[in-house]
Protein backbone atom coordinates (compact mmCIF):
# COMPACT_ATOMS: atom_id res chain seq x y z
CA UNK A 1 0.00 0.00 0.00
CA UNK A 2 1.30 3.40 -0.94
CA UNK A 3 0.95 6.31 1.45
CA UNK A 4 1.28 10.02 0.81
CA UNK A 5 4.19 11.58 2.67
CA UNK A 6 6.46 14.59 2.37
CA UNK A 7 10.03 13.86 1.33
CA UNK A 8 11.44 14.75 4.73
CA UNK A 9 9.04 12.26 6.36
CA UNK A 10 9.80 9.57 3.79
CA UNK A 11 13.48 9.87 4.67
CA UNK A 12 12.73 9.61 8.40
CA UNK A 13 10.56 6.54 7.97
CA UNK A 14 13.21 4.86 5.82
CA UNK A 15 15.77 5.54 8.56
CA UNK A 16 13.48 4.05 11.20
CA UNK A 17 12.84 0.98 9.02
CA UNK A 18 16.60 0.56 8.54
CA UNK A 19 17.08 0.43 12.30
CA UNK A 20 18.24 3.98 12.95
CA UNK A 21 17.84 4.41 16.71
CA UNK A 22 19.53 7.74 17.38
CA UNK A 23 18.74 11.07 15.82
CA UNK A 24 20.09 14.50 16.75
CA UNK A 25 19.30 17.66 14.84
CA UNK A 26 18.52 21.34 14.92
CA UNK A 27 15.62 23.12 13.23
CA UNK A 28 16.32 24.76 9.89
CA UNK A 29 14.04 25.27 6.91
CA UNK A 30 13.40 23.37 4.61
CA UNK A 31 14.05 20.21 6.68
CA UNK A 32 12.06 20.92 9.86
CA UNK A 33 9.79 17.94 9.29
CA UNK A 34 12.78 15.70 9.96
CA UNK A 35 13.40 16.55 13.64
CA UNK A 36 9.63 16.96 14.12
CA UNK A 37 8.93 13.47 12.77
CA UNK A 38 11.86 11.92 14.63
CA UNK A 39 10.85 13.54 17.93
CA UNK A 40 7.77 11.31 18.18
CA UNK A 41 8.71 8.35 15.98
CA UNK A 42 12.12 7.66 17.53
CA UNK A 43 10.88 7.19 21.13
CA UNK A 44 8.02 5.05 19.77
CA UNK A 45 10.53 2.50 18.45
CA UNK A 46 12.75 2.63 21.54
CA UNK A 47 15.32 4.98 20.06
CA UNK A 48 16.64 8.32 21.24
CA UNK A 49 15.90 11.75 19.83
CA UNK A 50 17.83 14.83 20.95
CA UNK A 51 17.10 18.36 19.77
CA UNK A 52 20.67 19.61 19.86
CA UNK A 53 21.75 23.13 20.81
CA UNK A 54 23.53 23.46 17.47
CA UNK A 55 24.43 21.46 14.38
CA UNK A 56 27.94 21.20 15.83
CA UNK A 57 26.55 19.47 18.91
CA UNK A 58 24.24 17.30 16.80
CA UNK A 59 27.04 15.86 14.65
CA UNK A 60 29.18 15.29 17.74
CA UNK A 61 26.29 13.46 19.39
CA UNK A 62 26.38 11.17 16.34
CA UNK A 63 30.11 10.67 16.95
CA UNK A 64 29.20 9.29 20.38
CA UNK A 65 26.08 7.38 19.29
CA UNK A 66 27.93 5.70 16.43
CA UNK A 67 30.83 4.80 18.73
CA UNK A 68 28.23 3.25 21.04
CA UNK A 69 27.10 1.03 18.16
CA UNK A 70 23.81 2.63 17.12
CA UNK A 71 22.65 3.30 13.60
CA UNK A 72 22.35 7.07 13.78
CA UNK A 73 21.40 10.05 11.68
CA UNK A 74 21.34 13.83 11.57
CA UNK A 75 19.86 16.17 9.02
CA UNK A 76 20.05 19.84 8.19
CA UNK A 77 20.06 22.29 5.33
CA UNK A 78 23.00 24.14 3.81
CA UNK A 79 24.07 26.63 6.55
CA UNK A 80 23.63 23.92 9.17
CA UNK A 81 25.63 21.45 7.11
CA UNK A 82 28.50 23.96 7.06
CA UNK A 83 28.47 23.86 10.87
CA UNK A 84 28.63 20.07 10.84
CA UNK A 85 31.83 19.94 8.79
CA UNK A 86 34.12 19.78 11.84
CA UNK A 87 32.34 16.69 13.14
CA UNK A 88 32.16 15.10 9.70
CA UNK A 89 35.95 15.31 9.39
CA UNK A 90 36.41 13.64 12.80
CA UNK A 91 33.82 10.92 12.16
CA UNK A 92 35.42 10.15 8.82
CA UNK A 93 38.88 10.05 10.40
CA UNK A 94 37.60 7.73 13.14
CA UNK A 95 35.86 5.58 10.49
CA UNK A 96 32.50 5.60 12.22
CA UNK A 97 29.30 4.92 10.30
CA UNK A 98 26.48 7.46 10.24
CA UNK A 99 24.00 9.06 7.87
CA UNK A 100 23.75 12.80 7.24
CA UNK A 101 21.08 14.47 5.12
CA UNK A 102 21.39 17.87 3.45
CA UNK A 103 18.13 19.29 2.12
CA UNK A 104 19.93 22.05 0.27
CA UNK A 105 18.72 25.64 0.17
CA UNK A 106 19.97 28.78 -1.57
CA UNK A 107 23.33 30.23 -0.55
CA UNK A 108 25.90 31.52 0.12
CA UNK A 109 25.39 32.89 3.62
CA UNK A 110 21.92 32.72 5.07
CA UNK A 111 20.76 32.65 1.45
CA UNK A 112 17.11 31.80 1.13
CA UNK A 113 14.82 28.82 1.69
CA UNK A 114 14.29 27.89 -1.96
CA UNK A 115 15.75 24.62 -3.17
CA UNK A 116 19.31 24.61 -4.45
CA UNK A 117 22.17 22.32 -5.46
CA UNK A 118 24.94 24.72 -4.53
CA UNK A 119 26.48 22.45 -1.86
CA UNK A 120 27.70 19.90 -4.42
CA UNK A 121 31.37 20.76 -4.00
CA UNK A 122 31.05 20.75 -0.23
CA UNK A 123 29.43 17.32 -0.39
CA UNK A 124 31.66 15.51 -2.88
CA UNK A 125 34.99 17.33 -2.61
CA UNK A 126 35.27 17.87 1.11
CA UNK A 127 33.96 20.66 3.31
CA UNK A 128 35.78 19.75 6.47
CA UNK A 129 39.55 19.61 6.90
CA UNK A 130 41.86 16.85 5.75
CA UNK A 131 41.77 14.31 2.92
CA UNK A 132 38.56 12.38 3.31
CA UNK A 133 35.59 11.21 1.32
CA UNK A 134 31.90 10.88 2.00
CA UNK A 135 29.68 8.49 0.11
CA UNK A 136 27.16 10.90 -1.44
CA UNK A 137 23.76 9.83 -2.73
CA UNK A 138 21.52 12.05 -4.88
CA UNK A 139 17.90 10.84 -4.87
CA UNK A 140 15.57 12.16 -7.55
CA UNK A 141 12.13 10.96 -6.41
CA UNK A 142 10.55 10.12 -3.07
CA UNK A 143 10.46 6.33 -3.69
CA UNK A 144 14.17 6.59 -4.47
CA UNK A 145 14.75 8.74 -1.39
CA UNK A 146 13.09 5.98 0.64
CA UNK A 147 15.28 3.23 -0.81
CA UNK A 148 18.52 5.20 -0.83
CA UNK A 149 18.08 6.27 2.80
CA UNK A 150 17.79 2.62 3.85
CA UNK A 151 20.78 1.75 1.65
CA UNK A 152 22.74 4.64 3.15
CA UNK A 153 22.83 2.92 6.54
CA UNK A 154 24.11 -0.26 4.89
CA UNK A 155 26.87 1.52 2.96
CA UNK A 156 27.84 3.41 6.13
CA UNK A 157 28.18 0.17 8.12
CA UNK A 158 29.77 -1.79 5.27
CA UNK A 159 32.49 0.79 4.61
CA UNK A 160 32.59 2.33 8.12
CA UNK A 161 32.16 5.76 6.58
CA UNK A 162 29.58 8.54 6.81
CA UNK A 163 27.04 8.64 3.99
CA UNK A 164 25.54 11.96 2.91
CA UNK A 165 22.10 12.15 1.33
CA UNK A 166 22.27 15.19 -0.91
CA UNK A 167 18.67 16.30 -1.34
CA UNK A 168 17.15 19.73 -1.70
CA UNK A 169 14.23 21.80 -0.52
CA UNK A 170 11.88 20.56 -3.23
CA UNK A 171 12.60 16.90 -2.48
CA UNK A 172 12.11 17.53 1.24
CA UNK A 173 8.89 19.51 0.90
CA UNK A 174 7.07 17.74 -1.95
CA UNK A 175 4.61 14.94 -1.24
CA UNK A 176 4.38 11.77 -3.28
CA UNK A 177 2.83 8.32 -2.76
CA UNK A 178 5.49 5.93 -1.50
CA UNK A 179 5.38 2.21 -0.83
CA UNK A 180 7.06 1.72 2.55
CA UNK A 181 8.73 -1.56 1.70
CA UNK A 182 10.40 -3.51 4.51
CA UNK A 183 14.12 -3.03 5.04
CA UNK A 184 16.57 -5.60 3.71
CA UNK A 185 20.36 -5.07 3.72
CA UNK A 186 21.93 -4.52 0.30
CA UNK A 187 25.54 -5.23 1.32
CA UNK A 188 27.34 -7.33 3.94
CA UNK A 189 27.18 -5.83 7.38
CA UNK A 190 30.43 -6.54 9.22
CA UNK A 191 30.49 -7.07 12.96
CA UNK A 192 30.99 -3.77 14.76
CA UNK A 193 34.28 -4.58 16.49
CA UNK A 194 34.96 -0.93 17.29
CA UNK A 195 32.04 -0.27 19.62
CA UNK A 196 32.74 1.37 22.97
CA UNK A 197 30.35 -0.26 25.42
CA UNK A 198 32.63 -0.97 28.35
CA UNK A 199 35.56 -3.38 28.28
CA UNK A 200 33.89 -6.35 30.03
CA UNK A 201 35.51 -9.53 28.73
CA UNK A 202 37.83 -7.72 26.32
CA UNK A 203 40.66 -5.21 26.22
CA UNK A 204 39.74 -1.52 26.42
CA UNK A 205 39.12 0.09 23.03
CA UNK A 206 40.14 3.56 21.91
CA UNK A 207 38.59 5.70 19.21
CA UNK A 208 40.89 8.55 18.27
CA UNK A 209 41.96 10.71 15.36
CA UNK A 210 45.25 12.10 16.72
CA UNK A 211 48.40 10.49 15.33
CA UNK A 212 51.55 12.24 16.55
CA UNK A 213 54.18 9.54 16.86
CA UNK A 214 55.98 8.15 15.04
CA UNK A 215 56.17 11.07 12.65
CA UNK A 216 54.84 9.16 9.66
CA UNK A 217 52.01 7.39 11.50
CA UNK A 218 49.47 9.83 10.11
CA UNK A 219 50.83 9.30 6.60
CA UNK A 220 50.23 5.58 7.05
CA UNK A 221 46.79 6.28 8.46
CA UNK A 222 45.99 8.38 5.38
CA UNK A 223 47.19 5.58 3.12
CA UNK A 224 44.76 3.18 4.79
CA UNK A 225 41.90 5.66 4.39
CA UNK A 226 42.77 6.25 0.73
CA UNK A 227 42.87 2.51 0.12
CA UNK A 228 39.35 2.30 1.52
CA UNK A 229 38.18 5.17 -0.69
CA UNK A 230 39.73 3.41 -3.70
CA UNK A 231 37.82 0.26 -2.77
CA UNK A 232 34.56 2.20 -2.49
CA UNK A 233 35.26 3.83 -5.87
CA UNK A 234 35.78 0.46 -7.50
CA UNK A 235 32.66 -1.10 -5.97
CA UNK A 236 29.99 1.56 -5.75
CA UNK A 237 28.65 3.28 -8.84
CA UNK A 238 24.95 3.95 -9.24
CA UNK A 239 23.40 5.82 -12.14
CA UNK A 240 20.42 5.87 -14.48
CA UNK A 241 20.77 6.05 -18.25
CA UNK A 242 17.97 7.07 -20.60
CA UNK A 243 18.29 6.51 -24.36
CA UNK A 244 22.01 7.11 -24.48
CA UNK A 245 22.85 4.43 -27.09
CA UNK A 246 22.11 6.53 -30.17
CA UNK A 247 22.08 9.93 -28.49
CA UNK A 248 23.88 12.83 -30.13
CA UNK A 249 23.29 15.03 -27.11
CA UNK A 250 23.56 13.80 -23.52
CA UNK A 251 21.87 15.71 -20.74
CA UNK A 252 23.60 15.27 -17.38
CA UNK A 253 21.72 16.11 -14.21
CA UNK A 254 21.20 14.70 -10.71
CA UNK A 255 18.59 14.88 -7.99
CA UNK A 256 15.44 16.89 -8.52
CA UNK A 257 16.96 18.61 -11.55
CA UNK A 258 17.27 15.26 -13.29
CA UNK A 259 13.59 14.64 -12.69
CA UNK A 260 12.74 17.94 -14.37
CA UNK A 261 15.23 17.30 -17.17
CA UNK A 262 13.76 13.87 -17.85
CA UNK A 263 10.56 15.54 -19.10
CA UNK A 264 12.57 17.72 -21.47
CA UNK A 265 14.49 14.69 -22.79
CA UNK A 266 11.20 12.86 -23.50
CA UNK A 267 9.82 15.92 -25.30
CA UNK A 268 13.00 16.13 -27.37
CA UNK A 269 12.68 12.46 -28.39
CA UNK A 270 9.04 13.04 -29.39
CA UNK A 271 10.32 15.86 -31.57
CA UNK A 272 12.79 13.52 -33.25
CA UNK A 273 15.88 14.82 -31.52
CA UNK A 274 18.47 12.20 -30.57
CA UNK A 275 18.81 13.13 -26.92
CA UNK A 276 19.67 10.92 -23.94
CA UNK A 277 20.36 11.44 -20.29
CA UNK A 278 22.78 10.24 -17.61
CA UNK A 279 21.71 10.71 -14.04
CA UNK A 280 24.36 9.91 -11.40
CA UNK A 281 22.81 8.46 -8.26
CA UNK A 282 26.11 8.10 -6.39
CA UNK A 283 27.68 11.58 -6.61
CA UNK A 284 30.75 10.24 -4.85
CA UNK A 285 31.98 7.88 -6.10
CA UNK A 286 31.12 9.64 -9.37
CA UNK A 287 29.92 7.14 -12.01
CA UNK A 288 32.53 7.84 -14.67
CA UNK A 289 31.94 4.82 -16.86
CA UNK A 290 28.63 5.87 -18.51
CA UNK A 291 30.11 9.29 -19.25
CA UNK A 292 33.30 7.87 -20.76
CA UNK A 293 31.20 5.52 -22.89
CA UNK A 294 28.83 8.29 -24.00
CA UNK A 295 31.73 10.58 -24.82
CA UNK A 296 32.78 8.09 -27.54
CA UNK A 297 29.47 8.35 -29.40
CA UNK A 298 27.61 11.51 -28.40
CA UNK A 299 28.60 14.84 -29.92
CA UNK A 300 27.99 17.09 -26.97
CA UNK A 301 26.78 17.27 -23.40
CA UNK A 302 24.44 19.57 -21.53
CA UNK A 303 24.72 19.91 -17.76
CA UNK A 304 21.68 21.20 -15.89
CA UNK A 305 22.03 21.99 -12.19
CA UNK A 306 20.63 24.41 -9.63
CA UNK A 307 23.97 26.12 -8.98
CA UNK A 308 26.40 28.32 -10.86
CA UNK A 309 28.34 25.29 -12.10
CA UNK A 310 29.75 22.69 -9.72
CA UNK A 311 28.54 19.27 -10.89
CA UNK A 312 29.64 20.27 -14.42
CA UNK A 313 33.29 19.95 -13.34
CA UNK A 314 32.84 16.25 -12.61
CA UNK A 315 31.11 15.74 -15.97
CA UNK A 316 34.05 17.40 -17.72
CA UNK A 317 36.49 15.23 -15.75
CA UNK A 318 34.53 12.06 -16.49
CA UNK A 319 34.41 12.85 -20.21
CA UNK A 320 38.05 14.00 -20.15
CA UNK A 321 36.82 17.14 -21.93
CA UNK A 322 36.55 15.14 -25.16
CA UNK A 323 33.24 16.74 -26.11
CA UNK A 324 31.86 20.20 -25.56
CA UNK A 325 29.88 20.53 -22.34
CA UNK A 326 27.32 23.31 -22.22
CA UNK A 327 25.65 24.57 -19.10
CA UNK A 328 22.19 25.55 -17.92
CA UNK A 329 22.07 26.61 -14.33
CA UNK A 330 21.97 29.38 -11.76
CA UNK A 331 22.51 29.58 -8.05
CA UNK A 332 20.42 31.24 -5.37
CA UNK A 333 17.18 29.30 -5.63
CA UNK A 334 16.64 29.22 -9.40
CA UNK A 335 14.66 26.25 -10.76
CA UNK A 336 14.84 24.98 -14.34
CA UNK A 337 11.56 24.28 -16.13
CA UNK A 338 11.19 21.39 -18.60
CA UNK A 339 10.44 24.04 -21.25
CA UNK A 340 13.67 25.94 -20.59
CA UNK A 341 15.69 22.72 -20.74
CA UNK A 342 13.93 21.65 -23.94
CA UNK A 343 14.62 25.05 -25.48
CA UNK A 344 18.31 24.71 -24.63
CA UNK A 345 18.36 21.18 -26.06
CA UNK A 346 16.67 22.40 -29.26
CA UNK A 347 19.16 25.23 -29.67
CA UNK A 348 22.08 22.86 -29.17
CA UNK A 349 20.64 20.35 -31.68
CA UNK A 350 19.97 23.08 -34.28
CA UNK A 351 23.51 24.25 -33.83
CA UNK A 352 24.69 20.71 -34.47
CA UNK A 353 22.70 20.58 -37.70
CA UNK A 354 24.06 23.97 -38.76
CA UNK A 355 27.61 22.81 -37.98
Amino acid at each position, binding site marked *: MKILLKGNEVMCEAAIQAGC*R*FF*AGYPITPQNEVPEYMSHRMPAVGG*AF*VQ*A*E*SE*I*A*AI*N*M*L*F*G*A*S*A*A*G*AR*CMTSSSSPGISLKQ*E*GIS*YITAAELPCVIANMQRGGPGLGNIRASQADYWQAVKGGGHGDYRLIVLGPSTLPELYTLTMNAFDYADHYRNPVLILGDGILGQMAEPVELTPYAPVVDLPEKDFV*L*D*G*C*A*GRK*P*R*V*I*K*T*LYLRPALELVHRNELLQAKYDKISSELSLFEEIETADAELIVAAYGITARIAKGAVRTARRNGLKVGMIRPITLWPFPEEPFMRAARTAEKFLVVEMSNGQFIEDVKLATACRRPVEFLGKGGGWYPTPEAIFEKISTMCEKSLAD
Partner: protein
Amino acid sequence: MEFERPTTLLETRTHYCPGCGHGIVHRLVAEVIDELGIRERTIGTAPVGCAVLLYDYFNCDIIECAHGRPPAVATGLKRVLPDRIVFTYQGDGDLAAIGTSETIHTANRGENITAIFVNNAVYGMTGGQMAPTTLLGQSTTTSPDGRGLNHEGPPLKVCELLASLDGVTYLERVAVSTAKDTIKARKAIRKAFVNQIEGKGYSLVEVLSMCPTDWKLSPQQGVDFVNHQMKKVFPLGVYKDRS
Protein backbone atom coordinates in the same frame (compact mmCIF):
# COMPACT_ATOMS: atom_id res chain seq x y z
CA MET B 1 49.20 -0.34 53.91
CA GLU B 2 50.42 -0.81 50.36
CA PHE B 3 50.18 2.04 47.89
CA GLU B 4 49.24 0.35 44.64
CA ARG B 5 48.37 1.41 41.14
CA PRO B 6 44.60 1.41 40.57
CA THR B 7 43.53 -1.22 38.01
CA THR B 8 41.96 1.62 36.00
CA LEU B 9 45.38 3.26 35.52
CA LEU B 10 47.77 1.79 32.96
CA GLU B 11 51.43 1.38 33.76
CA THR B 12 53.01 4.05 31.61
CA ARG B 13 55.51 6.86 31.75
CA THR B 14 53.83 10.22 32.28
CA HIS B 15 53.94 12.89 29.58
CA TYR B 16 52.78 15.54 32.04
CA CYS B 17 55.25 18.19 33.27
CA PRO B 18 56.74 18.20 36.79
CA GLY B 19 54.26 19.73 39.22
CA CYS B 20 51.26 19.32 36.88
CA GLY B 21 47.99 18.38 38.57
CA HIS B 22 46.63 16.11 35.84
CA GLY B 23 48.43 13.04 37.22
CA ILE B 24 46.75 13.52 40.61
CA VAL B 25 43.31 14.00 39.03
CA HIS B 26 43.84 10.95 36.79
CA ARG B 27 44.66 8.89 39.87
CA LEU B 28 41.63 10.13 41.81
CA VAL B 29 39.26 9.31 38.96
CA ALA B 30 40.88 5.89 38.51
CA GLU B 31 40.67 5.12 42.24
CA VAL B 32 36.98 6.01 42.28
CA ILE B 33 36.27 3.86 39.22
CA ASP B 34 38.11 0.95 40.91
CA GLU B 35 36.30 1.47 44.18
CA LEU B 36 32.87 1.54 42.54
CA GLY B 37 33.71 -1.52 40.42
CA ILE B 38 32.61 0.16 37.18
CA ARG B 39 35.76 -0.02 35.04
CA GLU B 40 34.30 -2.60 32.66
CA ARG B 41 31.21 -0.53 31.97
CA THR B 42 32.82 2.92 31.85
CA ILE B 43 33.49 4.98 28.74
CA GLY B 44 35.64 8.09 29.05
CA THR B 45 35.79 11.00 26.62
CA ALA B 46 39.17 12.64 26.07
CA PRO B 47 39.38 16.37 25.34
CA VAL B 48 41.73 18.38 23.16
CA GLY B 49 44.49 19.82 25.31
CA CYS B 50 47.05 18.28 27.63
CA ALA B 51 44.68 15.44 28.60
CA VAL B 52 44.10 14.36 24.98
CA LEU B 53 46.21 11.28 25.68
CA LEU B 54 43.77 10.10 28.36
CA TYR B 55 43.72 6.69 26.66
CA ASP B 56 47.44 6.27 27.38
CA TYR B 57 46.60 6.32 31.09
CA PHE B 58 43.11 4.88 31.51
CA ASN B 59 42.45 1.16 31.36
CA CYS B 60 38.90 1.54 30.04
CA ASP B 61 37.13 2.45 26.79
CA ILE B 62 38.01 6.00 25.68
CA ILE B 63 36.89 8.18 22.78
CA GLU B 64 38.94 11.22 21.82
CA CYS B 65 36.72 14.15 20.84
CA ALA B 66 36.98 17.38 18.89
CA HIS B 67 37.88 20.43 20.97
CA GLY B 68 35.03 21.30 23.33
CA ARG B 69 32.68 18.57 22.11
CA PRO B 70 33.03 15.87 24.80
CA PRO B 71 29.64 16.77 26.37
CA ALA B 72 27.90 16.23 23.00
CA VAL B 73 29.81 12.99 22.36
CA ALA B 74 29.00 11.84 25.89
CA THR B 75 25.33 12.64 25.26
CA GLY B 76 25.34 10.38 22.19
CA LEU B 77 27.09 7.56 24.08
CA LYS B 78 24.85 7.78 27.14
CA ARG B 79 21.56 8.02 25.22
CA VAL B 80 22.47 4.87 23.29
CA LEU B 81 23.90 3.02 26.32
CA PRO B 82 22.04 4.39 29.36
CA ASP B 83 23.33 1.62 31.66
CA ARG B 84 27.01 2.43 30.99
CA ILE B 85 29.00 5.01 32.94
CA VAL B 86 30.13 7.94 30.81
CA PHE B 87 32.51 10.64 31.98
CA THR B 88 34.09 13.65 30.33
CA TYR B 89 37.53 14.87 31.32
CA GLN B 90 38.07 18.41 30.12
CA GLY B 91 40.33 21.39 30.60
CA ASP B 92 39.30 25.03 30.86
CA GLY B 93 39.70 25.85 27.17
CA ASP B 94 37.76 22.76 26.16
CA LEU B 95 34.93 23.09 28.67
CA ALA B 96 34.65 26.83 29.21
CA ALA B 97 35.71 28.44 25.90
CA ILE B 98 35.24 26.48 22.68
CA GLY B 99 32.80 24.05 24.29
CA THR B 100 30.80 26.44 26.48
CA SER B 101 27.64 25.86 24.48
CA GLU B 102 27.91 22.06 24.72
CA THR B 103 28.70 22.30 28.44
CA ILE B 104 25.74 24.52 29.31
CA HIS B 105 23.20 22.59 27.26
CA THR B 106 24.39 19.15 28.32
CA ALA B 107 24.23 20.29 31.94
CA ASN B 108 20.81 21.86 31.48
CA ARG B 109 19.38 18.75 29.79
CA GLY B 110 20.45 16.96 32.93
CA GLU B 111 22.33 14.31 30.95
CA ASN B 112 23.17 11.54 33.38
CA ILE B 113 26.94 11.88 33.01
CA THR B 114 29.94 12.92 35.11
CA ALA B 115 32.12 15.87 34.06
CA ILE B 116 35.62 16.25 35.47
CA PHE B 117 36.73 19.81 34.79
CA VAL B 118 40.41 20.58 35.33
CA ASN B 119 40.88 24.34 35.72
CA ASN B 120 44.48 25.51 35.62
CA ALA B 121 43.82 29.02 34.33
CA VAL B 122 45.96 28.60 31.22
CA TYR B 123 46.16 26.81 27.85
CA GLY B 124 48.76 24.18 28.58
CA MET B 125 49.31 22.15 25.43
CA THR B 126 49.52 25.12 23.08
CA GLY B 127 52.09 26.81 25.28
CA GLY B 128 50.57 29.14 27.84
CA GLN B 129 47.93 31.30 26.16
CA MET B 130 45.09 32.99 28.04
CA ALA B 131 42.28 30.67 29.16
CA PRO B 132 38.67 31.63 29.92
CA THR B 133 39.64 31.08 33.57
CA THR B 134 42.90 33.07 33.54
CA LEU B 135 42.95 35.43 36.53
CA LEU B 136 42.77 39.20 36.20
CA GLY B 137 46.30 40.53 35.97
CA GLN B 138 47.69 37.06 35.13
CA SER B 139 50.24 37.31 32.38
CA THR B 140 50.06 34.75 29.54
CA THR B 141 51.50 34.60 26.02
CA THR B 142 48.32 36.20 24.65
CA SER B 143 47.75 38.57 27.57
CA PRO B 144 51.37 39.67 28.07
CA ASP B 145 50.40 42.73 30.13
CA GLY B 146 48.08 40.68 32.32
CA ARG B 147 44.42 39.89 31.79
CA GLY B 148 42.45 43.14 31.93
CA LEU B 149 38.93 43.65 33.19
CA ASN B 150 38.00 45.98 30.33
CA HIS B 151 39.83 44.20 27.55
CA GLU B 152 39.62 40.46 28.11
CA GLY B 153 36.94 40.53 30.80
CA PRO B 154 37.05 38.70 34.11
CA PRO B 155 37.61 34.92 34.41
CA LEU B 156 34.63 32.71 33.69
CA LYS B 157 33.32 30.96 36.80
CA VAL B 158 31.89 27.66 35.65
CA CYS B 159 30.37 26.37 38.89
CA GLU B 160 28.69 29.71 39.58
CA LEU B 161 27.41 29.84 35.99
CA LEU B 162 26.02 26.31 35.95
CA ALA B 163 24.50 26.67 39.41
CA SER B 164 21.79 28.85 37.86
CA LEU B 165 20.56 25.93 35.73
CA ASP B 166 17.64 23.94 37.16
CA GLY B 167 18.65 20.85 35.17
CA VAL B 168 21.96 20.38 37.01
CA THR B 169 22.27 17.89 39.88
CA TYR B 170 25.66 18.41 41.51
CA LEU B 171 28.42 20.99 41.28
CA GLU B 172 31.48 21.16 43.46
CA ARG B 173 34.76 23.02 43.17
CA VAL B 174 37.77 21.32 44.70
CA ALA B 175 41.56 21.56 44.45
CA VAL B 176 44.54 19.20 44.39
CA SER B 177 47.07 21.65 45.81
CA THR B 178 47.14 20.28 49.38
CA ALA B 179 46.72 16.79 50.83
CA LYS B 180 43.53 17.87 52.57
CA ASP B 181 42.10 19.35 49.37
CA THR B 182 43.01 16.21 47.44
CA ILE B 183 41.08 14.02 49.90
CA LYS B 184 38.06 16.30 49.46
CA ALA B 185 38.50 16.21 45.68
CA ARG B 186 38.38 12.41 45.76
CA LYS B 187 35.14 12.49 47.74
CA ALA B 188 33.59 14.94 45.28
CA ILE B 189 34.63 12.86 42.27
CA ARG B 190 33.24 9.76 43.95
CA LYS B 191 29.94 11.49 44.55
CA ALA B 192 29.77 12.66 40.94
CA PHE B 193 30.13 9.05 39.76
CA VAL B 194 27.71 7.66 42.36
CA ASN B 195 25.11 10.21 41.22
CA GLN B 196 25.37 8.82 37.71
CA ILE B 197 25.17 5.21 38.88
CA GLU B 198 22.02 6.14 40.79
CA GLY B 199 20.58 7.92 37.74
CA LYS B 200 20.50 11.32 39.39
CA GLY B 201 21.67 13.40 36.42
CA TYR B 202 24.44 15.80 35.53
CA SER B 203 27.35 16.18 37.95
CA LEU B 204 30.43 18.34 37.47
CA VAL B 205 33.51 18.55 39.65
CA GLU B 206 35.77 21.51 38.96
CA VAL B 207 39.33 20.81 40.08
CA LEU B 208 41.72 23.73 40.57
CA SER B 209 45.01 22.35 39.35
CA MET B 210 48.62 23.35 38.84
CA CYS B 211 50.38 24.23 35.58
CA PRO B 212 53.76 25.49 36.79
CA THR B 213 55.34 25.12 33.33
CA ASP B 214 53.02 27.60 31.64
CA TRP B 215 52.74 29.77 34.72
CA LYS B 216 56.57 30.02 34.54
CA LEU B 217 56.78 28.91 38.18
CA SER B 218 58.46 26.10 40.08
CA PRO B 219 56.24 23.18 41.20
CA GLN B 220 56.15 24.58 44.75
CA GLN B 221 55.31 28.06 43.50
CA GLY B 222 52.57 26.45 41.39
CA VAL B 223 50.99 24.95 44.50
CA ASP B 224 51.21 28.37 46.16
CA PHE B 225 49.54 30.02 43.14
CA VAL B 226 46.52 27.72 43.49
CA ASN B 227 46.36 28.18 47.26
CA HIS B 228 46.89 31.95 47.39
CA GLN B 229 45.60 33.26 44.06
CA MET B 230 43.18 30.84 42.39
CA LYS B 231 41.20 29.90 45.50
CA LYS B 232 40.43 33.62 46.10
CA VAL B 233 38.86 33.96 42.65
CA PHE B 234 37.42 30.43 42.54
CA PRO B 235 36.20 29.65 46.06
CA LEU B 236 36.07 25.94 46.88
CA GLY B 237 32.83 24.33 47.93
CA VAL B 238 29.54 22.76 46.86
CA TYR B 239 27.67 25.02 44.43
CA LYS B 240 24.68 22.77 43.90
CA ASP B 241 23.50 19.48 45.30
CA ARG B 242 20.11 18.13 44.33
CA SER B 243 21.24 14.53 44.79
